[in-house]
């Protein structure tokens, strides 16, 4: 929000030069974003619009920080009347409008406003219009209360604060046309809407060059309602911003008195009646302050008097241990709010750093986090690099307010983005080996809250000219062994897809091959469930093992997995099996045939195997194979 440095200086004489102000004000109050000539851009926190979105508010803070007395602007000495012959007001929606102040003024000559006033408006980013409108804006800048002036001659009957009727139309002073709903608040007269309450004035009773008599409005509207209307009709103004954050109704009365003074001084106006209806008396808010409690919360050692002094400089009234909260401080409601005021003024730079004294309880990583770390360690050791992709990708769960057409859904798998990563990187590398750990999102029947998303591990490997599936299968196998999951089966579930299953048929993950890219995706939550850290010592074999190679020629459609499976189950003395080599060569072994060479390791626990024994086992294996396929043993 833009402020005029010269106006702040008028209220807080000890405010330092802009360069120093921008340095020091943020350390005790709010961030200062920019300084440009007379303009100072200050970030007003969302809970401080009532007291600090005004020059007097910032000056009050500056006086408390930098010292000096706050000099408040002069006001007219006015008393509200209960009725007026010139105009009348009523509130038909008291829940949405807690206070409405109307001030009548006449004998006005519309002119440009004086130069000093225009300059302050310009510093604050507002455009000077004429003396009446400029005073309204100026008072808003000074006090923080949005104001509006109607041409009294153009208002028919009583001013009524009421809900709009559905589709009621209004043209605003800037020529905008809006259609209101029956939840929007309007300022109306007998003829219809005069203004969109708290947001923008209407064209019909606008102050114009012929205006001589005006009705000034300073009201208080319910914040959430103004906020909703402003969003719905997509119109944000200085007024809607302030009302939307919530203002104290005390500002209305201060603003009316100040406006009266300026109308007299600048326009030579004759001030008429002031009607002030609704909640005109605010209940006093008080809190008990206890320095001991403060020191316990903040970790300081200040005495009661020092603390209360800080509050006093901010305009809090002190009676013994009781602190009376200024009415504009709508943000202060509990003890901790007072503590914040004190520690801010005291300064964090002076606050000591204290080592916490706590019970020594064990700390650690959640299991799933530890698993992720281990997976990353193993995979990077295998030479895979880690990528991060967006959570948005065509999937099953739809976003209600997507930011772009291609970001309408949450990803349901890590595959498509990894495939894209591979493709992109192959432009620069001969081979790509990557992985990603991230959440994927499922829809359908949701069993519990957490079932909506699952933690997934995706891997992708591609070389320029090789089948990467064996490599990725090898990596996944070693990975699962490394994290303690040895018991699983791989089944072919589709033409180019394999499913990894637990012994209880739970889905662990799958492999997928597309062209030269091989991919794997694992559900890490299931992996965590199945993995076991427990290992048990197995005696190291006392007797030597025997190695035999077995070459078979089978039909080209025969799946290697099935052949290997039969061999594995063909002998109880078989300890390990590896596929050494495979090829297709029509000249050597005929059309539609392939040759497979396995290395078999035989081992007995209690004796050294003889050639004869191993020969028998080999015969058993070959017989089992011949039973199932048309095989030729070479």
């Amino acid at each position, binding site marked *: 929000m833009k402020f005029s440095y010269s106006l702040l200086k008028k209220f807080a004489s000890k405010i330092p030069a802009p360069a120093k102000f921008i340095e020091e004000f943020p350390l005790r109050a709010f961030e200062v974003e920019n300084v440009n000539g007379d303009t100072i851009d200050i970030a007003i926190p969302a*809970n401080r619009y009532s007291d600090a979105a005004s020059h007097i508010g910032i000056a009050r803070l500056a006086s408390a920080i930098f010292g000096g007395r706050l000099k408040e602007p002069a006001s007219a000495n006015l008393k509200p009347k209960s009725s007026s012959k010139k105009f009348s007001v009523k509130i038909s929606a008291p829940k949405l409008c807690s206070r409405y102040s109307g001030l009548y003024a006449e004998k006005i000559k519309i002119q440009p406003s004086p130069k000093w006033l225009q300059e302050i408006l310009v510093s604050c980013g507002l455009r000077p219009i004429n003396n009446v409108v400029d005073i309204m804006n100026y008072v808003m800048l000074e006090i923080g209360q949005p104001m509006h002036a109607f041409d009294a001659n153009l208002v028919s009957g009583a001013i009524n604060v009421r809900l709009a009727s559905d589709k009621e139309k209004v043209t605003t002073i800037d020529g905008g046309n809006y259609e209101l709903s029956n939840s929007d608040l309007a300022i109306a007269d007998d003829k219809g809407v005069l203004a969109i309450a708290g947001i923008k004035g209407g064209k019909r009773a606008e102050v114009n060059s012929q205006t001589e008599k005006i009705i000034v409005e300073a009201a208080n509207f319910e914040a959430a309602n103004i906020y909703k209307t402003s969003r719905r009709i997509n119109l944000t103004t200085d007024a809607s911003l302030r009302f939307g954050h919530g203002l104290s109704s005390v500002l209305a009365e201060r603003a009316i008195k100040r406006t009266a003074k300026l109308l007299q001084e600048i326009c030579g106006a004759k001030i008429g009646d002031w009607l002030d209806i609704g909640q005109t008396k605010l209940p006093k808010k008080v809190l008990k302050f206890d320095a001991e409690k403060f020191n316990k919360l903040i970790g300081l050692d200040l005495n009661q008097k020092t603390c209360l002094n800080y509050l006093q400089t901010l305009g809090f009234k002190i009676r013994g241990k009781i602190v009376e909260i200024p009415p504009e401080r709508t943000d202060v409601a509990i003890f901790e709010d007072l503590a914040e005021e004190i520690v801010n003024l005291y300064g964090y730079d002076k606050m000591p750093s204290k080592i916490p004294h*706590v019970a020594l309880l064990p700390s650690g990583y959640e299991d799933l986090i530890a698993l992720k*770390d281990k997976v990353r360690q193993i995979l990077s050791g295998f030479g*895979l690099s*880690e990528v991060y992709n967006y959570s948005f990708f065509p999937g099953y769960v739809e976003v209600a307010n997507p930011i772009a057409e291609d970001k309408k859904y949450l990803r349901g798998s890590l595959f498509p983005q990894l495939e894209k990563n591979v493709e992109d990187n192959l432009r620069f590398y001969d081979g790509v080996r990557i992985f990603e750990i991230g959440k994927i999102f499922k829809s359908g029947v949701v069993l519990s809250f957490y079932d909506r998303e699952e933690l997934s591990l995706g891997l992708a490997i591609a070389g320029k000219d090789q089948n990467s599936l064996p490599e990725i299968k090898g990596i996944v196998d070693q990975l699962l062994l490394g994290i303690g999951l040895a018991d699983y089966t791989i089944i072919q579930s589709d033409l180019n897809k394999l499913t990894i299953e637990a012994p209880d048929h739970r889905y662990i993950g799958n492999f997928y091959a597309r062209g030269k890219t091989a991919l794997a995706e694992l559900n890490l939550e299931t992996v965590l469930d199945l993995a076991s850290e427990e290992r048990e010592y197995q005696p190291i074999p006392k007797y030597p093992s025997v190695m035999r190679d077995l070459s078979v020629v089978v039909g080209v459609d025969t799946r290697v997995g099935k052949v290997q499976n039969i061999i594995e189950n063909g002998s109880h003395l078989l300890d390990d099996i590896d596929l050494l080599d495979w090829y297709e060569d029509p000249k050597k072994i005929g059309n539609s045939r392939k040759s497979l060479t396995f290395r078999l390791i035989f081992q007995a626990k209690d004796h050294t195997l003889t050639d004869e024994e191993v020969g028998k086992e080999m015969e058993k294996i070959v017989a089992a194979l011949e039973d199932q396929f048309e095989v030729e043993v070479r």
Partner: protein
Amino acid sequence: MNLDSVKKSFSEEIKNVKDAKALESVRVRYLGRKDGEITKILRSLKDLSPEEKRKVGPEANALKAELELVLEKKLKSLAASQKSSSVDLTLPGKKIPFGHLHPLTQMEDRIKEIFSTLNFSVVEGPEVETEHYNFDALNIPANHPARDMWDTFWLLQNEIKNQKFKNLERLLLRTHTSPMQVRYMEKHRPPFQIIVPGRVFRFEATDASHEINFHQVEGLMVGTDVNLANFKYVIEEFLQQLFGAGTHVRFRPSYFPFVEPGLEVDVQLNSKWLEVMGAGMVHPNVFKAVGYNPKEVQGFAFGMGLERLAMIKYKIPDIRMFYSGDLRFINQF
């Protein structure tokens, strides 16, 4: 021979030595116990006048030491040249494939490591959240501009029943990791200290410093008397471990609805102050929302952006690079 001529002829001979055997014969000729040239000179010292003795003695001994050194070096170089004829040791190292962890993972790991040494536990939470956990329980009221600090992605047709409040709740993509404060406190009793790394989402236009998804690390420490000065200690310790001892850290007032007092933390790098963290003392309304008695417990919470820290630490100019999947970027870390 005098010392000078001994030195000269030795130098000539040693140059022509090609193997260990020839080297040994040179050694015997000059340093041999019986007839070595130096040995002879040293032996002849006894016949010289005391004056000559004082002059020649030390010179002869120095030359002896020098020759021994030269012989030793020559022996080593002969041995080395013999070996290098069979294996070329200058062959370059083989390129071993090496995987790189994403820079955000590395930054997160470092943060987890530092907080682990401070006895913080590490937990995570869901990315899809309810309005209750993301906003209401954190004292962020509906229809208040304060909520505009978090531009939100909402999910379509995915309302779920909130067990606690028995009404339908709107689902959203969490806008910060703070909902885990609530979830964790609902299930645990103080004292505890945790950090919560995780992905968060904001409905906003992307540019060099804004992304629609990014990562935060939340922190929460609650006990009976955990105070703001304790926060200052923990965070100074953390930031100095992360950015180096002596890094200047600054604390200043700020506003977040779920803390009171609220503050922001800056670090000074290259004489510029950079904002790295929002924080404060947990608001009593948050304690009430999780069923704690705010009169009995107090503590602090903080949150920081992982991308921002990584960008500062590794001097990365554009946040979008983290999500490019480009190995030319990732493999630098």
